[in-house]
């Protein structure tokens, strides 16, 4: 008994020693000089970027790309850990809400010199996209690789049953007082458990089976897929600089009126209560289960909506507002280079390739996102058409120039930390829209403190 126990313990110690030795070797795993580690979060985009990596390697045999994909939540925490521990990937997909902070902390590499040296043509991208990746300090941090806008995804079976025509859906109007024809349509699409519609007598707003409009959350500071376009067509701007502002305007009546109207839909029974919207089943899955008539969402979700087998989804343009036109937020992703990378040339070569038409044609054909290069757009349109989508509603605001940028800011994390609870409180009726003025003061205080 003693002997076996002793042997076991000795074996354990030996194991520890061995693993320590093995561990040291693992840590210094041999990585080729030309090997670039690349991270992205969307699993749906993995196949097309794998294809890009293959073509890239064929064109540049001295470089290889190793792609790693992590889910959205883990992606950012792993990235931050990587920054801290000097083990971040060489190139990673950046987002407007995060890259300014990284730039501020010196974690992403400015590419101005590379762009100048290689004479990269920035005019091939959609209007305004390339400049989005110029940070608050005036330096460029990435080449755009895709873009997105918002539209309404609606359940075509419901709209047919409600007698709403496609023309009506694509010519909606809106104003913060009575919601325009948009609210009329939402009302018509709402059905209570006894089958009565929102515009019929006896409609029971406390017992609704199908909500006319769905939403995922209160939107935080950006409201990209929840309220951003209402505020914009009401004449509101996030801040005085677009996008780099020194103060925000969340207290402006144009904004609080918009939120007041949006929240009012819950009171009237056309939108689910905040608690229901925030439950574990996301808005798209609920839509697919027939609980919502319409949900606004971004173009990157086309694939997900396409996968909803029980619902035939169609697209409707955003409404025309008091300023007389439609507007949509236009955002886009770009690949950014980690400032601590030891393979600068390889990384730049990969970023340049991803921003080139060759790569974007591959992206376009996959029919998952819209490529940033304007010339690749027809291929994308065709690919989406093959899946049954007419993506014109997404394109129109971009072509008309009626777009506004994501409210990027180096202090985005702090702003979100104030605005998300504030908006949550308003949407769950624990605070009034007027309370957003106070939240705005807090936000501006943070910005001036960190200026």
């Amino acid at each position, binding site marked *: 008994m003693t002997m076996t126990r002793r042997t076991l313990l000795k074996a354990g110690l030996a194991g520890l020693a061995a693993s320590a030795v093995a561990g040291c070797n693992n840590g210094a795993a041999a990585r080729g000089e030309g090997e670039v580690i690349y991270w992205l979060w969307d699993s749906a985009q993995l196949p097309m970027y794998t294809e890009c990596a293959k073509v890239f390697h064929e064109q540049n045999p001295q470089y290889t790309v190793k792609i790693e994909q992590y889910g959205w939540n883990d992606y950012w925490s792993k990235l931050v850990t990587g920054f801290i521990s000097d083990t971040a990937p060489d190139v990673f997909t950046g987002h407007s809400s995060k890259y300014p902070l990284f730039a501020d902390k010196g974690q992403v590499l400015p590419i101005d010199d590379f762009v100048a040296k290689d004479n990269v043509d920035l005019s091939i991208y959609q209007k305004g996209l390339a400049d989005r990746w110029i940070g608050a300090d005036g330096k460029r941090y990435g080449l755009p690789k895709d873009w997105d806008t918002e539209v309404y995804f609606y359940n075509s079976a419901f709209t047919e049953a409600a007698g709403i025509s496609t023309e009506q859906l694509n010519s909606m109007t809106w104003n913060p007082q009575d919601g325009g024809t948009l609210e009329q349509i939402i009302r018509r699409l709402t059905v209570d458990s006894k089958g009565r519609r929102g515009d019929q007598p006896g409609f029971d707003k406390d017992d609704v089976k199908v909500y006319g409009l769905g939403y995922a959350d209160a939107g935080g500071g950006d409201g990209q897929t929840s309220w951003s376009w209402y505020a914009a067509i009401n004449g509101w701007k996030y801040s005085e600089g677009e996008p780099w502002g020194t103060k925000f305007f969340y207290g402006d009546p144009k904004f609080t009126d918009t939120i007041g109207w949006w929240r009012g839909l819950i009171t009237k029974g056309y939108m689910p209560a905040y*608690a229901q919207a*925030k439950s574990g089943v996301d808005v798209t899955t609920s839509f697919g289960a027939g609980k919502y008539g319409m949900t606004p969402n971004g173009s990157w979700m086309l694939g997900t909506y396409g996968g909803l087998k029980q619902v035939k989804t169609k697209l409707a343009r955003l409404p025309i507002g008091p300023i007389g036109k439609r507007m949509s937020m236009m955002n886009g992703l770009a690949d950014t280079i980690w400032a601590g990378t030891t393979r600068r040339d390889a990384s730049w070569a990969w970023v340049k390739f991803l921003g080139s038409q060759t790569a974007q044609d591959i992206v376009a054909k996959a029919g998952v996102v819209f490529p940033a290069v304007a010339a690749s757009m027809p291929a994308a349109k065709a690919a989406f058409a093959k899946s049954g989508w007419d993506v014109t509603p997404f394109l129109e605001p971009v072509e008309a120039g009626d777009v506004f940028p994501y409210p990027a800011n180096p202090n985005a994390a702090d702003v979100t930390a104030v605005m*998300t609870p504030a908006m949550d409180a308003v949407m769950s009726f624990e605070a009034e829209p007027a309370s957003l003025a106070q939240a705005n003061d807090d936000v501006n205080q943070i910005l001036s403190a960190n200026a």
Partner: protein
Amino acid sequence: MTVTTNAPPDKRRTHGDVAAPPTRRRSLGDLKVAMIFLAPATLGFVVFYIWPTLRGAYLSFTEYSLLSAPNFNGLANYERMIQDSFFWNALVVTVEYVVLNIGLQTILAVGIAMLMYRLTQSITVRAVILLPYLIANVVVALVWYWMLDFQVGIVNQGLTYVGIDPVAFFGESQWAIPTIAGINVWRHMGYTALLVFAGLQMIPKYVYEAAEVDGSTEWKTFWRITLPLLRPVLVMVLVVTMIGSFQIFDTVAVTTQGGPINATRVIYYYIYERAFTRFDFGYASAMAMVLFAILAVISLVQLRLLRAKESDLA
């Protein structure tokens, strides 16, 4: 408590081992041996506990973003903490959680232990009760997040079946913390129950027999005899579980991320947010120091108050 064994004492003589006279050289002689025995544990303790704590204490007086060197800024972090409404909210929320969690868990654990003690010695029952502990915290949180979902969770389906309106367990401010407390009770009650059960087994039978002879009822026996005799075990369980409870993180990170609004933004999660997503590690360290101080005070108070060292049986 004595342990008897049938093995005869070791009679083998060993070379080189000098038989030390039992009394005189004991105090110093033991120190040398003790140091050998303690060496690895002390190494681990100093390197992985003491040093980080000291470094954390130092960092609490700095402004530190983790990406560049720390900047000493004196008491600024602590001053900011006093004004920070999120911090006070986090403390309140955490205390609320601890009270609910520990209260419910201890009551249930004692209850289950008593039931096992009086009803059955079956291994199966004990094994089943311990089962939740085998699953990782994050998994438990996800499973219950799924089961308690407002729209498709089975619990709400059951409630509507019985005629009660569905409850947004994670979506409503007043339900969020009790729900998280409940989930952790589910995971830990079996383990805690077994600890108490072991304590129950230590109480000698003659105490119960005496009580029965005196005509005591079950209930009275429990309150007047069993509970007091369980005191050392209960105190140990309370102290350890309370410390763990204050550090609740996994469940919140996986389910509510501090929401809805700020209802579940417990202190530990707030510290993590500040450190990792807002690059404010100096401030996070300051809050961690305060948390440490609070835990130390509470544990000392508990141990004092409940006279942990004594046992009514001795």
